[in-house]
């Protein structure tokens, strides 16, 4: 079992201490971790959800725009941050794994280390109606 990149470990440790919901993926987009505040929004504790590929997490929460139109994975801020290596922000609707629809504002940013190494991306999730 290979050790994660040091910056990713630090990101996870930091996220685990913050009350802001945070979601972390690796360079392939695989979900590595979301913290306890994010568990409330996504409707399942991370230890139950576990790591999952981008193709799964980008659809499992059924993201839609304000009009209810489904959003393609490439329209999601975290995917933009990862693929375009730039910050991205968007408000959208998801349905948590507890079945509850929530409108969330997402700010995503790429994690780029020394030597221009793409390490993954992180997203801050904001419950628009709940905070």
């Amino acid at each position, binding site marked *: 079992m290979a*050790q994660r990149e040091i910056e990713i470990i630090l990101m996870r440790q930091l996220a685990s201490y913050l009350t802001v919901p945070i979601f972390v993926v690796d360079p392939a987009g695989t979900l590595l971790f979301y913290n306890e505040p994010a568990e409330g929004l996504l409707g399942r504790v991370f230890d139950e959800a576990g790591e999952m590929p981008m193709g799964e997490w980008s659809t499992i929460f059924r993201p839609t725009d304000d009009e209810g139109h489904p959003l393609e994975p490439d329209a999601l801020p975290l995917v933009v941050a990862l693929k375009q290596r730039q910050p991205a922000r968007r408000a959208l609707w998801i349905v948590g794994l507890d079945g509850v629809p929530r409108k969330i504002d997402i700010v995503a940013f790429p994690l780029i*280390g020394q*030597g221009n190494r793409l390490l993954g991306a992180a997203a801050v999730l904001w419950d628009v109606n709940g905070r």
Partner: protein
Amino acid sequence: MKVTLWGTRGSLPSAGPETVRYGGNTSCVELRDRAGALIVLDAGTGIRRLGSVVEREIARVDILLTHLHMDHIQGFGFFDPLYRPGLEVHVWGPPSTTHDLRTRLTKYLSPPLFPVRLRDLPCRLHLHDVPMGAFAIASLQVHAALVFHPGPTVGYRFVERERSVVYIPDHEPALGARTFPGRPRWTSGYDLANEADLLIHDAQFTEEEYEHRVGWGHSAITHTAKFARLVGARRLVTFHHDPGHSDDTLDQMARRIENASTPFELMPGQEGRSFTIGA
């Protein structure tokens, strides 16, 4: 490989009657491969004495810096081989996100902090931003990786004929961990130190001291022991002793983690001590 400790102290040189057994010089370790190639790990004050015994006929020296905190570079300008015309000296160390190694090292090795500029050294000096991942020096496979410590800091793993020496003098793998040790993939330094034949690792603090120094980039000796157990190290050399710790204190710290179930051989880092790894 042969390893000799020339400086085992952390943070600040600490000469005095209370530190004569473990030594007061800051980080410096001599590593020789089977053919005698010289690799110097860090340039703390211990490097001065090492420099005085480097053979005259040697053609190349490699100095590998883990980071640029003062206790790891303070002795650099006092390393005698730097003043030998024609000697090839390669210095490897981490760049920052905005400055290369030369720029960073020059901040110290130039007036007013030091009288001799890097460019004025008589040796043939080559500076390298250390690559992350594997590279080779002489017969050694070297692997460098970032580890938990304030500022860009690497640890090194050296492999020769499947035997390994790992050097992580400044490391706080317990930082931010809810429980330590956690899973290997989420533990700083795990890949570097995995199944090391000889692990030289930060053990600066007692557990009580660590509680007041979280985030300073160093380990409680109990964390060091847990880390060594997690990675499956065969021998552990505790290193980067706190400048305020006397010989007696270091003896006591070692006794606290040493017991019959310790799965590795424990050897508190003592200036002048040597180890042979492999044939």
